[in-house]
């Protein structure tokens, strides 16, 4: 899509400079900024409480680092498929973009599936949110992250169906893959920090 066509379909955020920023992209980054505050606050508080209170290592030893590492691999791979979907859409390879969107959705569901297995195992062993401060943080942080993954899966699925029907590529909606990708990569970055915090330390 040419820049003139893009300008016709996308409102721009005038930064006062010669090069303006699509308002959709600025909006996504503002949303991510609010998410950084949420997860940043949680992670920072977790670190402080962990430093202040000993004995968390024993509680943390009951999480499965193997499942955590597997989930990290799944999420990192989903980031790859998401960016490949964007690359394909930008070069006019719409069917390829749709396939990669579907892969991203499936990998996201795989992540949630593995997380469900973890939760089931931990709850059966008696580790629930009230079992200790580590477990409170663990369930809050991974649960909130899981909700974000769910939201990303739903949006990516909507994009996939739009791609297969051809409606995604009309009306200047192709930017949606980029915006969804920014959100999905952010959720991946959050997990990149949650994994070592909760599973490796």
């Amino acid at each position, binding site marked *: 899509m040419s820049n003139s066509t893009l300008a016709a379909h996308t409102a721009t955020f005038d930064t006062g400079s010669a090069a303006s*920023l699509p308002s959709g992209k600025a909006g996504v980054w503002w949303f991510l900024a609010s998410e950084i505050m949420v997860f940043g606050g949680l992670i920072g508080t977790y670190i*402080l409480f962990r430093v202040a209170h000993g004995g968390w290592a024993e509680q943390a030893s009951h999480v499965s680092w193997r499942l955590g590492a597997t989930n990290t691999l799944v999420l990192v791979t989903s980031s790859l498929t998401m960016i490949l979907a964007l690359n394909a859409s930008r070069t006019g390879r719409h069917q390829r973009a749709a396939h990669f969107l579907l892969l991203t959705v499936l990998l996201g569901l795989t992540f949630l599936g593995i997380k469900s297995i973890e939760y089931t195992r931990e709850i059966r062993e008696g580790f629930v949110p009230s079992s200790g401060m580590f477990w409170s943080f663990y369930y809050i942080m991974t649960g909130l992250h899981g909700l974000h993954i769910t939201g990303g899966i739903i949006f990516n699925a909507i994009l996939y169906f739009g791609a297969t029907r051809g409606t995604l590529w009309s009306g200047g909606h192709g930017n949606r893959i980029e915006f969804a990708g920014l959100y999905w990569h952010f959720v991946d970055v959050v997990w990149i*920090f949650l994994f070592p915090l909760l599973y490796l330390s």
Partner: protein
Amino acid sequence: MSSTTEHSDFDYVLIWVWLVALLGAGTLAFLLPIGKGAALAVIFGIAMVKASLVVRDYMHLKSERLLIYVIAALPLILALGLALVLIPDIVYHR
């Protein structure tokens, strides 16, 4: 939408290979019998590198305008500030 891309598909796959290798290295640091402090430094250092790869190359932050950097950096600074002001209450106040 621009018809040009910042990276080729191969470049993105290469970054993924790096991310997977770093994941392996971080997990190895956890398993090896090295000092706790050294292990934590390696593990979180690797996490920072992985995050920067995703942010820089997948989110294309390296080619974004200054405004985006400001939007992304401001909450990081605020979150760090929040943690710092909580230190006296959480870490030292028992």
